């Protein structure tokens, strides 16, 4: 007896919202990156869940791609955080409030 799909969805919603919560409440860019990671993984859960639901592997393959993209995103993200730190002596995202400084 497999678990019903909506419970996976609920789990992914929970993980996603935790990520969103992190983004909304924190100001630290590193925590942002972590939160984004959570949200991406929530998406992965969805992909895998629906892959199972439909009996089609596409979702699973896609989740692999997502992980790869997440890695790329983190790489760039960390780079940006570094630049941010260099320019503001801080990584508080609310400090960097203009497009050009």
């Amino acid at each position, binding site marked *: 007896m497999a678990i019903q799909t909506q419970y996976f969805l609920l789990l992914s919603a929970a993980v996603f919202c935790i990520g*969103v919560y992190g*983004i*909304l409440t924190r*100001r630290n860019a590193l925590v*942002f990156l972590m939160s984004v990671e959570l949200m991406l993984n929530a998406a992965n859960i969805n992909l895998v869940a629906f892959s199972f639901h439909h009996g089609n592997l596409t979702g699973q393959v896609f989740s692999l791609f997502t992980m790869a993209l997440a890695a790329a995103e983190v790489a760039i993200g960390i780079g940006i955080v570094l630049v941010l730190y260099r320019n503001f002596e801080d990584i508080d*995202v*609310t400090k*960097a*409030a*203009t*497009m050009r400084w």
Partner: protein
Amino acid sequence: MAGAFDFVPAIAALPLLAFVVSLFAGQYMPKRGAEAGILATAGSLVLSIWTALTVAGITGSATSYNENLYTWVAGVADGAVTLRLGVLVDPLTALMLVIVSLIALLVHVFSLGYMNDEGETGLPRYYAGLGLFTASMLAFVFSNNLLMAFMFFELVGLCSYLLIGFWFREDGPPSAAKKAFLVTRFGDYFFLIGVVGVFATFGTGLFAPITEGGTVVAESFPQMAEHALEDGESFFGYSAQTWITILGMLVLGGVVGKSAQFPLHTWLPDAMEGPTPVSALIHAATMVAAGVYLVARMYGFYLLSPTALAVIALIGGFTALFAATMGVVKQELKQVLAYSTISQYGYMMLALGSGGYVAAVFHLTTHAIFKALLFLGAGSVIIAMHHNENMWDMGGLKDRMPVTYWTFLSGSLALAGIVPFAGFWSKDEVLFEALIHGFGSTGTLGTMFLVAYAMGLLAVFFTGFYTFRMVYLTFHGDARTDVARDPEPVGWNVKGPLSVLGIGAATVGLINMKPIADLTGLHIDFLHKWLLGPEEGGWPALTSTGLHHYEELMHNVAGIDPAYPLGETTTLLVSALVSLSLALAGVLVARSLYNEPEPVEHTDKLGGAKTLLMHNYYQDEYQVWLAQGVTVPLARAADKFDQGVVDGVVNGISSVSLFTGSRFRRIQSGVVTNYAALMTLSLVLLLVVFVVLGGGV
């Protein structure tokens, strides 16, 4: 075979050619363009005389001519009127053509003395203006429809503007030119409505029907109006009678403006800022006559509306008196003449209004001659006085410039209406017609005529007075200034035209000595016969502009009939004697007051009336007030309204959007967290909406 009528357009085309030549080549000509003008007007005069002879039946078989020659705007659809230009020649046209081209020629010659010999600059412009004026005026005269008449009516207005403002470097002339054009434009506004109305009502503006081989191919609007009146039609929700009156009054607006009738007379005295030959040609003999001529031209239409006739008569009578009283106190020579001109055109209007068609045309003719003479005489005096026009600086010029004096005297006698000079015959006939029609017509119309007659009669006295006040102050007594003691001599080109006109002023009255004719039974009322035409057939049958037709209309439609309270002959004599004695009284009063070596001003004796007269009854003041005290503030208020309210709303809308933009911009704080929160909230909201709506319809 090409007859005179085929060359009628050339009467206007020649001066038009002179206009072009003078404008572009005038500066290379020895007389700066005058040659072209003189040749052209001489040509026009010859052609006009030939035309007149043809109309008289001497040089051709056809005695009238009415053809459309040029389609200006062709109306393609049904109900779209076609606008054409054409030529109408009948005795009235022929007479007027001769008058206009004669005076134009004389004025061109006179200008050689007045402008060229005085060393004026800008003469090509001057002669070009004269040429264009002559062309437009002549074309106006032979216009065969109302629209064409209006178009050339406007063009003569333009020429008047250009020529009054000839000395544009001074302040006065441009201002006077502006006033002249604007005031006449105001009248023309009504005229234009009238033209549009006539075309919209009747679909044609023809003054006379066009016939081909005896059948009418295009009816004229006076005839159509006549039929409409008989059939009891209605136009635009009005009865034919009312509508004809409305149209007539509208066209009358243009007449009142151009012929300087009350209340649009104020431009004419100012127009004396222009060169004197221009005043003679435009503002005395021809252009000002255009209005009166127009009424005569469409007389068959006006006769259908007794109301319009009464108004014309009253305006005429009032203007005659009103302007004459103002002429009494003027100090400048040309000013006196200007008011006299207004007054004399009042007589013509009086005649037309009271059914005196022949009298009006007669007075138009004589006045053109003697008033042109008086203006040219004044011009001669002005040359002699080095352009000082104040009569109080003159005196005693009689002996120093005899040609001018004698011709001027001839004109003055004509103007004052002293027998046997031209003015006596015509003015007497005007008054006589008003009198007998006043007695003969029924109801208020007759009363109106009598009121107008009374005013006209009273004006005779003033006319005699101001005319001879002018003569005495200018020519008699002792010279009051050095210039007057040693005036500049004038040349042949001044004396020539003066002599021609001087003889004319003495004799032109002979063309229609109605009193003599009636007394002796001799048929010497030539003008009457000229306008009456043959009893059967001939031009009156073709054009229906003959006197017979008009008399029928007068009797049948307008209810104007002659009545002789003292019997026909006695009434005629009494009328003539009354007006002559009034004129003589005026002359004698002037003589007693001013015919002395050192005349003094008597105007103070008028008391309060002097101020009133010197200020021209405050007519200018109220018109200037209308322009500057009402219109300009109104325009300013409109401007304020436009800048403040209309544009204010526009700017207000833009500032509202700028303001809301600046408020909404605050959302764009640049803080990632806020954006994320907004996104989240929006997503939640969107989802809730979907849930509530039942999931993605």
